[in-house]
């Protein structure tokens, strides 16, 4: 079972296609990459990665390292404030 994609062509009747997606127990739209071909799996990754989280807390000099989200932790493995100030000084 998948999610129905309603396709409205420029002319002619609406068409339907079933996408390899399902709804998780948390109410989120999910895809199983193992059920799809590689090209579709890559696009599913892209759809997942495009999500924003407007509720993420601001990061300040006082934020504890343990409270950094994973992507900020990755970035801080090779970037610090001194580097930033050097590259943006002009």
């Amino acid at each position, binding site marked *: 079972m998948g999610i129905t994609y309603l396709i409205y062509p420029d002319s002619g009747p609406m068409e339907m296609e079933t996408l390899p997606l399902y709804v998780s127990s948390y109410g989120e739209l999910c895809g199983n990459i193992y059920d799809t071909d590689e090209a579709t799996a890559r696009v599913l990754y*892209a759809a997942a*990665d495009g999500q924003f989280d407007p*509720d993420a807390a601001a990061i300040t000099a006082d934020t504890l390292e343990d409270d950094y989200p994973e992507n900020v932790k990755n*970035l801080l493995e090779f970037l610090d404030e001194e580097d930033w100030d050097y590259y943006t000084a002009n």
Partner: protein
Amino acid sequence: MQVDGTDADGTPCTECVGFSSFWDFLTAVAKVPAFCNANNGPAYARFGQVAMCAKEFASLVAVYVTQTGPIHNDLPELVDADGNPIADYLSGGQTTEENRCVSTHDNYDETWCDELKNHYNNYAQADSFYTDRIDVNTEDYYPRGAGYVMGIEHYYWMSQILYGDNTLVDDPSILATDPVAFWLAGLKTWMIPQEGRPAPHNIITGQWEPTEDELDIGLSDGMGAVSALLYGASQCGISKHPVANSRKSIYEGLIALLNADDGSWTAADTIYSWEDNGCETVKRMAFPNDQDYAVLPQFAAISYLGDDGFTVNYANDGCYVVDHETDYIIWQKDAWKKCSVAAVEA
């Protein structure tokens, strides 16, 4: 770019502090969880997240520095206190918006900006979906922010995704004046596939791989494809385009610089021999919009009207996926849940 602020002693000063602090940038990054923490494509899954993050950061910086630097924006070359030229890689961030559309800027070009208006909508030209949801206004939604967000539709969706309301359509200048919003404008362009094409994030993390047709026009994995995506024929397929060459050079310089202190990874490890860092060999044309990313429905709908024009059909799983605009765009946090709740209530 330096803006007014206060010095180390707390005394007000003119053009004395950077437009964006390190913390502004990190705050924006925190709101985009997959930037620097991607679901890497199969070919890149074997590299560590930090190394892939370094690669993605290098590519983002190379685009940002050239996009906001003096050459691309026809601004005077930067020089240090002794009058010596400042290197390209240290010259980014000279503008936060398309200065040719800023009436108070030296580079204001009314003719050029009017021509640009043929490529985006303000309120008067907007579709009824938008005019039904936005107060009548005379704002000009010209390119602003690190990602040069342009057109009332893009401002509207960015506002919904980030604020859940019309903050950015009501005051579009925020993208050029608030540093966190400025970076988020860049990250929107960086992360979200648009108009049948991948986003730069998809290219750099291997979520896009060139199809046979794309290989035929000279596209290959890597930074060069990012340039082709963002600038197409205006900069690519040309051997000596100064901005494209500068972007490639900055990218390669950063890639060479970024590695672990303990030697456990280098950004260079993540670049395959078949990747192209520049775009001079790509055919001079727009990035194709009819390949793997051609179909990516971005909206959810609670129902559709039957052929009889009366019957309203609801989905068993809560909502349908559609291409046309609805109030539920998938890039917004919990959009599917909100749609499903609305479907149940309907």
